[in-house]
Structures are given as C-alpha cells and as structure tokens.
C-alpha cells in the first residue's frame, strides 16, 4: 500500500490524526464557540447614564459566569451596540444581532421607549426576551417569552403607584384632592395613567391633570400652576431634568401639600441627590433598591462593591443602587434558566422561567403570566434627614426610608409633606 511516509495519502492521514489529537487536547472552552448574548444599550443620549451603569453590571455578571466556566461549557461573549437612546435605531440593531452577528440569546436595552421597538423582531424569531425596566411593554404584545426585571408587578401601570395611594389613604386626615403631572414621554405617561385610575377609584378629586414637554428647560410656571390648584396630593411622572427642575421649583415657591413625589426618575441617582440635598426631605417617591437593612439580599452587597469599583472614573452613578442590581439579575435569571434547561431551546427556557422562583441579588423573583413580577415590589421611599453637600450619606441607611411594601418596610411616613 503506502510504501513511503511521503506518499500523499499517508501524509494526509497522519496530518488529520495530528490535527484531531490537537483538537481533543485543547481545553473545552476553546473548542466550543463562545455563547453570544446580544443587546442594544443606551450608551449615548439622555438615558446613557443608566445604560452605561447597566453595562457595567452586565459585564460583572459575564465575568462571574466566565470564571465559573461559562454557560453550557461555553464562555459568554457580549455583542452590543449603542442605540443612542433613539428608539428608531433599535429594530436595526436587533436585526443585525440576529441575522449578521448570529447571537445565541438576546436581552433588552434599558427603558420602555427602547424595549418596545425590539419586540416585533424578537417575537418573529420566537426568542426569550429578558427586559430591563420597561413599563407595561407586554400589555401591547402579550408575548409569552417576555420577562421584565423591574419589580413593577403584574398590573404594571397600576402597581407602579399602588403603594403611593395606599400610604396616602391610610393617613389622617385623609387627602381629598390630587394634582397629576406627567412629562410627555412613554414611561411617565404610563405611570401617571395608573395614578389617574387609582385617584378615580379612591374618589379623589383631580384638580390638575397636565403633561409638559420632554426636556423643558424651566418648569417653574408648571409648579406655580400646581400650587394654585391647592391639591392635597401631588403625583408626578418625570425624567431627570424635569424632576430636578420640579423639586427646585417646589422649594423655591414653597409648595404646600400632604404628599409630593410619585414617579420622578432621577431622584434615585447619587449626583442629583447630592445636588438637591435637603430639598429632597419629605418627598415620597418610587425606588427599587436602597441601602436599608430590609433589602439586604444575599449577594447584593458583594455585587455593589464590584460595581462601585468598576464605576470609578466612568462618569456614571457611583453607588449604582437603582438599576445595576437589576441589570445583573436579569442576566442571572437567564443564565440560571439556560443552565437548568441544558440547552438554548427557547421554548424550554421560557417555560422554566415561568415556573421558577429565582434567587437573585435583588431577592427572590418569580414572574406572572404576562412576564412581569408576580407581585409588586415597587418601593415607596421617603427622603429623610438629608444634609447638604454630602454624597456619602446616600450610600448608608437612614436617608431613604422604605414605606411600602410592608414586606421590606423600614420605617413610617412623616405626613404631611409641608403644611
């Protein structure tokens, strides 16, 4: 047959055997292709502060998992693009992720406005979609593989403000009237729509109900009109710029009301908290995680330590209480589900997530049929004893007292706000 080693066929067989031997000799993680998780993220534009903080948290999860050998024996690799906080860019990004980059799993960008545009593409492919802080996105789509990590609750628009109204109606004297104000963008409108329903259900007289344009430079006139309406309760849905303006205007114009706050985004961020300082005292607002002893879930402190080290010098929120633990958790849940199922079968992963209670750094998480948290844990917190020019105070207990829900309550409300 092959009389010499230099015979072409013999050479081919030997080479093939050497190659096969080398392949088997390689570590498992090099043999297997990386497991790609794709997403868009707001890394520039108005929501970039949150988007960049989320990305730091997500990378911490990736490093943690890769240190343990990855998922299904494959190292995790992120493929992501900046959506510039522009909803119009989101469909194109997910099309590229799925058709060009061929990612194995997808998760969402941050925020309602950036999540909704991805939904039709994700649904067409039948993928599990872990979502990061979308308010009631699935109300429109009814997609059974959608799971949302923000603890809004099974009826998100209503659950969002349920605690605010529960607290208000428990007080003596009971409030009789309410002013509703919303910044003109999807999340804020949804939050205030829920508050409006609660107000009507509870028989509160709505004495002011308006929206204001997104990014308005000055809202002093709006606050003046609210003060003129003399409402007992003031519920606001706003974004950071608007929230800061309204809190400052409320102090400058000496707002008097029984409760003030509600759904103001921005008051959770350390830089804004430091600047507003004592102006925050008495405000009752939503939050998701604060450093109170009642929210000390296993792993959360270790995670925040890593986040705070990673956030240094990046121009993002230095403490990362608001979004990062949840950005870590939505990947924790996806990773746990993939591991439990033992494959990337999207149907099986979705079924597993539906039936399981996950232990995460934000506590135990289980999902309702619509993919929202089975039970609301939207906190209502009250700012207390806040001093001027001290950012470190917000990284300790005692400044944001949890009033609702009872399962994690850390104190009682000081009522009224100002009279």
């Amino acid at each position, binding site marked *: 047959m092959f009389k010499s080693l230099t015979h072409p066929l013999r050479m081919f067989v030997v080479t093939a055997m050497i190659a096969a031997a080398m392949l088997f000799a390689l570590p498992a993680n090099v043999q297997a292709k990386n497991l790609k998780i794709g997403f868009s993220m707001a890394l*520039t534009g108005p929501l970039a502060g949150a988007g*960049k903080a989320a990305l730091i948290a997500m990378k911490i999860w990736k490093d943690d998992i890769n240190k343990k050998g990855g998922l299904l024996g494959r190292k995790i690799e992120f493929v992501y693009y900046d959506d510039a906080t522009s909803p119009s860019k989101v469909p194109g990004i997910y099309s590229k992720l799925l058709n060009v980059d061929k990612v194995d799993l997808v998760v969402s960008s941050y925020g309602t406005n950036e999540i909704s545009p991805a939904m039709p593409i994700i649904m067409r492919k039948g993928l599990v979609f872990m979502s990061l802080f979308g308010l009631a996105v699935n109300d429109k789509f009814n997609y059974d593989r959608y799971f949302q990590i923000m603890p809004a609750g099974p009826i998100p628009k209503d659950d969002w403000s349920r605690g605010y109204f529960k607290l208000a109606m428990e007080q003596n004297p009971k409030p009789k009237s309410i002013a509703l104000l919303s910044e003109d963008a999807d999340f804020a409108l949804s939050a205030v729509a829920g508050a409006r329903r609660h107000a009507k259900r509870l028989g509160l007289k709505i004495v002011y109900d308006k929206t204001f344009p997104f990014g308005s430079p000055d809202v*002093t*006139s709006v606050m003046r009109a609210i003060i003129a309406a003399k409402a007992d309760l003031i519920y606001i849905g706003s974004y950071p710029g608007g929230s*800061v303006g309204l809190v400052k205007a409320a102090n*400058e114009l000496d707002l008097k009301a029984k409760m003030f706050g509600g759904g103001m985004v921005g008051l959770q961020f350390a*830089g*804004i908290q430091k600047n507003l300082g004592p102006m925050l005292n008495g405000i009752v607002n939503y939050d998701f995680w604060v450093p109170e002893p009642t929210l000390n879930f296993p792993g959360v402190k270790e995670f925040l330590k890593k986040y705070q080290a990673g956030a240094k010098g990046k121009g*993002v929120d230095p403490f990362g209480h608001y979004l990062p633990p949840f950005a870590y958790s939505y990947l924790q849940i996806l990773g746990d589900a993939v591991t439990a199922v033992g494959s990337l079968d999207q149907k099986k992963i979705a079924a597993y997530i539906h039936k399981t209670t996950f232990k995460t750094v934000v506590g135990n998480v289980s999902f309702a049929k619509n993919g929202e948290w089975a039970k609301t844990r939207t906190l209502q917190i009250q700012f207390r004893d806040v001093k001027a020019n001290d950012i470190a105070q917000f990284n300790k207990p005692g400044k944001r007292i949890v009033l609702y829900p009872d399962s994690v309550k850390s104190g009682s409300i000081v009522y009224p706000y100002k009279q």
Partner: protein
Amino acid sequence: MFTVDLLLNAVFAGLMLGAFYAAVALGLSIAFGQLDIVNIAHPTFVIMGSFVAYILNENFGIDPVLIGVVFVPVFYFIGTNLYRFYYVSFERTSQESLSGLAFFFGLMFIIEVLLILTFGVDYRLVSAPYIGKTLHIGVLDLPYRMLVPAIAASIMTGAVVLYMSKTFMGKAILAVSQDSLALQLMGANPLKVKRVAMGIAIASAALAGALLIIIQPVEPSVGRLYIGRIFAIVVLGGMGSISGTFLAAILIGVVESFIATFYGPSWAPAVGFSILLLTLALRPQGIFGRA
C-alpha cells in the same frame, strides 16, 4: 384658575426664561443671521460652557457665572480659529452650503462623544448660594436660579448690542452681513471681521452654557433639545438682528410661561412655533428683519 398674582408671576417667569433663551440664541443669530454659517453645532458649544462651569464649580466652588465670564476669551479664541478652518475648508471653495452643514453636524457629534468620553453620561449640576432661594417682591416670587441667568443674559446681550452699534469692528460685522465686497472696498478685511464675529458667537454660547447649568442639570446630549427652539428664535427675531433676537426670545419665553400656567405646558412649544409660522406668513423677514 386666573388670578392677577398668577398672571404677573407668569409674565415675569416668562421674561426670565426668555432672557435665558436670548443668551443661547445670541451666538447663533450672529453666526447664522449675519455670517450665513449654519452652525448646527452651536448648542454643543453651549454644553461645553456648561461643563467648564461644572468642573470649576465642583472642584473650586467658583460661581458659574463668573466662570462663564472668565472663559469668554478662551471660547472667543476657539471661535476665531473655527472660522479660520471653516473658511479654508469650505467657504473659500464655495462649498459652505452642503459641506459646511455636514461639517458642523460632524463637529457636533465629535464634541458630544468627546464630552461623553471625558465626563461620562451622568447628569451634572452646579452649586451656588443663590440656587434654591427666591426673591419675594409683593406677589412676585422670582427664583434666583432663573433671575441670575436672566440678568447675566440681559447684560451680555446689551453688551453685544453696544459693541455692534458703537465700535468700528461691530459696525463692520453688521456691514459684512450686508455686503462683504463693499466692506472690502472700504479697506476692511472681511475675513478678519468674520473671524471676530464667530469668536463672539462661540464665546456667547459658552457663557450661555454657564447660565444653563444653573437652571437645569446637564449631560452631553442635552444641547440637542435646544436646536429647534433657538433656530426658531433667530428666524422670528429677523435673521442677524441682535435686539430682534432678544425680543423674539422674550416673546417665546412669555408665551411658553403663560400657556404653561393657564392652559397646559404641553401646548407651550406648539404655540411658540405657531407664532413663528404666523410671523413668517405675515412678515417673512421676521419681526426685526430688513425687508
């Protein structure tokens, strides 16, 4: 609810807001209205001014208005050199209409990305003893957070109006916007005049940025929210008319404040732009523009 108190407060809040709008629009009125330079990047220079004010306020506690004034020469220098580059690259070869526009678009994104890379994307705010306090005069409540920028903006606009009307260079800037060739025949150098004008435009934008960060928190992309409004003010005021720009800004500010107080804040921009459309229909050259 309509009361005299509310009406007076709405008018004064509008005056303060309008004066601030004028500060932001002033530089664009010079660049766009007088030099025919469609400086889309104008709001980005405003944000640069905000970040300079933020850095020095955060680290040394210096008042943001003072920082804005001190940095006027620096931004003036940037403005003159920006024009030099614009002239060599586009205006000299008559490519300013499309290529020049693309250049300023690109410049806007580059500056924005540089700000993000340097400072990150968190909201930045400044502290000053007057922020959060209010001046009470009878029924009027005037927050210093609005009053101080309004006064500074009015002084800045007044200074530019005086400069334009009383100095040789100021008059030359007005002349170059009308007839560059005639100015050259009079012995003046149009390029130098335009360089000075662009320097003033960018310097005023940076000073307006220092005022902006007193009013609201700033992140690198927040300037985009102002593009439409300030172009509208410049057109409404009559392209290139500084006093017209100031009055148009005051008009928009008062209308926005009035609508926000008595009707609904979401209608404020729509009413403002309706005034612009109505003015253009009845007086295409703007309120103070030359026919």
